[in-house]
């Protein structure tokens, strides 16, 4: 491929230095692009920049909110990345997240007076099972009928949203809730213990970090993780070596569903404290961006989930203090991904100046 007087040549091996530099360069570039956009919109770029990217990390109270937002993104993105590396594209984490929330809520909804230290761990476990169950459907369809998991997982998300609606306006509606589509407020033992007093950060953050270590181990050291990566990079080579493709699909979708289900459970048992419609706020979709921004690597994903969480909180700030529309946050996320995808090309390729190539 040629670009003006330059040519892209494949490197002998992916550059490790650039693998770190590329995302940072992409971040700086997208900040510059977006600031230019704000100037064009007649906003004060310095104020917007401050509200979006500086404020969220300067006070403990707002940074704790960042950590809270980061938790579900981190959990889901680590699970999705395992599938993405195997080229099993699960874009229905949102639905699996909702099912996790619903399954976890079953305990406090059915037993509103429940007490005991076992309650919240059971809710988390149930949530993981819910997410996995929701991912079984696309797995069966893909393995048996060769139906694209991209479409099936997406459609399953729409069904999950309707299921949530049905429960909240029907059987699971709080009888004392003034007809709002919400469940009962969960009892204390059905909520997650806080990690830092005075904030809303709970044990789910610790779970997400432990989960990240497990995922790191999975791709670095386990043969199963290796097989999944081979299947994604070179399906023919996986077939040649005799790695089962059905197994890769099952593993990818189940792990993705499990992670999203855990996140859904942690959301209702954590900051929300009841089952309501607003829990489906798009974590499942944002986690896709988080996974790719993190280079589908467990360490990268820790940083990318933090960054996207900062943008969430900072975007809210900017809406209030700089009058920025909510769409500006989405534009930022989108441009970040585009810049990143362009920048990582240089990790595997390098630009070579063509001596005779400087021609019209």
């Amino acid at each position, binding site marked *: 491929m040629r670009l003006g007087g330059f040519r892209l040549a494949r490197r002998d091996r992916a550059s490790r230095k650039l693998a770190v530099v590329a995302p940072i360069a992409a971040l700086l570039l997208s900040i510059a692009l977006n600031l230019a956009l704000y100037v064009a919109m007649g906003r004060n770029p310095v104020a917007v920049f401050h509200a979006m990217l500086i404020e969220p990390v300067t006070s403990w109270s707002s940074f704790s909110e960042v950590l809270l937002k980061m938790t579900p993104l981190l959990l889901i993105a680590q699970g999705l990345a395992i599938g993405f590396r195997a080229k099993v594209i699960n874009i229905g984490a949102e639905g699996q997240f909702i099912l996790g929330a619903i399954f976890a809520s079953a305990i406090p909804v059915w037993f509103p007076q429940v007490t005991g230290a076992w309650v919240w761990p059971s809710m988390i476990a149930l949530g993981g099972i819910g997410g996995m169950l929701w991912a079984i459907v696309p797995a069966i369809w893909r393995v048996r009928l060769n139906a694209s998991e991209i479409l099936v997982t997406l459609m399953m998300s729409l069904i999950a949203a309707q299921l949530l609606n049905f429960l909240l306006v029907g059987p699971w509606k709080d009888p004392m809730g003034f007809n709002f589509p919400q469940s009962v407020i969960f009892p204390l033992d059905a909520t997650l213990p806080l990690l830092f007093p005075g904030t809303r950060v709970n044990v789910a953050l610790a779970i997400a970090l432990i989960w990240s270590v497990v995922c790191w181990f999975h791709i670095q050291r386990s*043969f199963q993780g290796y097989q999944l990566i081979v299947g994604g990079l070179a399906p023919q*080579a996986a077939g040649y070596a005799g790695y089962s493709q059905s197994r890769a699909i099952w593993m990818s979708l189940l792990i993705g569903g499990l992670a999203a289900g855990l996140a859904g459970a942690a959301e209702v048992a954590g900051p929300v404290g009841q089952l309501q419609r607003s829990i489906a706020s798009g974590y499942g979709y944002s986690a896709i961006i988080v996974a790719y921004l993190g280079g589908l690597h467990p360490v990268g994903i820790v940083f990318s989930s933090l960054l996207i969480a900062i943008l969430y909180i900072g975007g809210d700030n900017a809406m209030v203090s700089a009058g920025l529309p909510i769409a500006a946050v989405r534009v930022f996320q989108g441009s970040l991904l585009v810049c990143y995808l362009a920048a990582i090309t240089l990790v595997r390729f390098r630009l070579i100046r063509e*001596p005779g*190539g400087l021609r019209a």
Partner: protein
Amino acid sequence: MPAPLLAIRGLSKSYGRVHANRSIDLTVEEGSIHAILGENGAGKSTLMKLIYGVETPDAGQVTWRGDPVRPTSPAEARKLGIGMVFQHFSLFETLTVVENIALIVPGRSAALVARIRDLGREYGLEVDPRAHVHSLSVGERQRVEIIRCLMTDPRLLILDEPTSVLPPQSVTRLFQTLRRLRDRGVSILFISHKLEEIRAICDRATILRDGAVTGTVDPRDHDATELATMMIGRDMPPPPPAKAHKPGKVALELAGLDHVPDDPFGQPLSRIALRLHEGEILGIAGVSGNGQAELARLVSGEVTLPDHRAAEVLMLGQAVGDLGAAARRDLGFAFVPEERLGRGAVPEMSLADNTLLTGHRAGLLRRGLIDRAREADYTARCIRDFDVRTPGPRTEAGALSGGNLQKFIVGREIMLQPRLLFVSQPTWGVDIGAATAIRRRLVAMRDAGAAVLVISEEIEELFEICDRIQVLNAGRLSPSMTVRDIRVEDVGRHMIGATEGGAS
């Protein structure tokens, strides 16, 4: 004396620290068939890219019919009158011949059809202009490529290893075409590493080694051994002596296997019967596309049969037709596929990680976890014992040359110490030195008691190493022939299906 068609003086090109071409001198006269001879990696392809404008030289000059030129793109080279047929064809399979040509050559369809027919008659390049490319044989596709070049009236035609894909009969035909072109005043640069071919058709040969010219000779005055010495800089190792041996137990048996592949363009197989013993090498000859790929997948387990047909493939004493590739490998089977990148190895992964692909059986795992130390050890041994030229085990497989990657894959499979080894196209695109090394390894495997199955297009190779040969043509396998009792022509007859009914 008129100026030569193409004269090159002191042409150099480096990629980083690798000097692909070092001060090359080359003169191509009008009306000449000029060979460029060299091992893989000797710099042949780079030189052609410089001439054809794909790459630009670091130093040196090119004169074309007496005028200095500096082509910086294939379009400019074509304008000068230089055409090139690449080793890997660039045709769209779903389009017809004339549609493919119309993509590059301007003109109305009817006029193009007429010109394709004219050129076909004139040069023996007959091909149906309205046929879809996917329905054409490899030989016909090559004719389409050559016709496409001729459409622009070139004075010089570059052919990159044109015979590597052709059966012997088509080679003869191609040579007639090339001679006719030369008689009409088109010079030809013919790239090859097949010595006999060059002696048969070329009137000059320039020999490259390590990026530099080691000689320019009339190949008809030198025998193959002399040319080979110039090419590889040392005497060719003699072929390994055929050792007397007695075959052991049956390691692989197919008894009348029928198979229709899922791929609509695949070649169905019909009544395939073969029996391979431990301690012998069985060769499958024939031109690619006659069922080789389909047969390879059935033997390797990448394509499986339904349960009730399991007994149609017997491997190492077991019915394995319904078993996948991993289960067959667990029995002591190993396989080198014809596609190296993307099938035999993952291009984006390091050599060490590619070791794991099939080598994990050799104790590289502990309770499902990868033992990195043993993986590194296995990789290092493979690189050393099989002379894989690479900066190190962390290099990505995609960065290796074809020959070196092949040595790596062959090494990885042989180090598994299989009882049944299956190698498809062991030396495709591999230079003479590496090819000889690979062949010796296969013979050594046989002598150690393993059963070896080889699919190859190169008849000479099969005659060199095999005990028996069967020919695959149009999805049918010929009866077994003992190599000692036959000649190359016997195999050739089976390759073109000229023995229908006469086989016994």
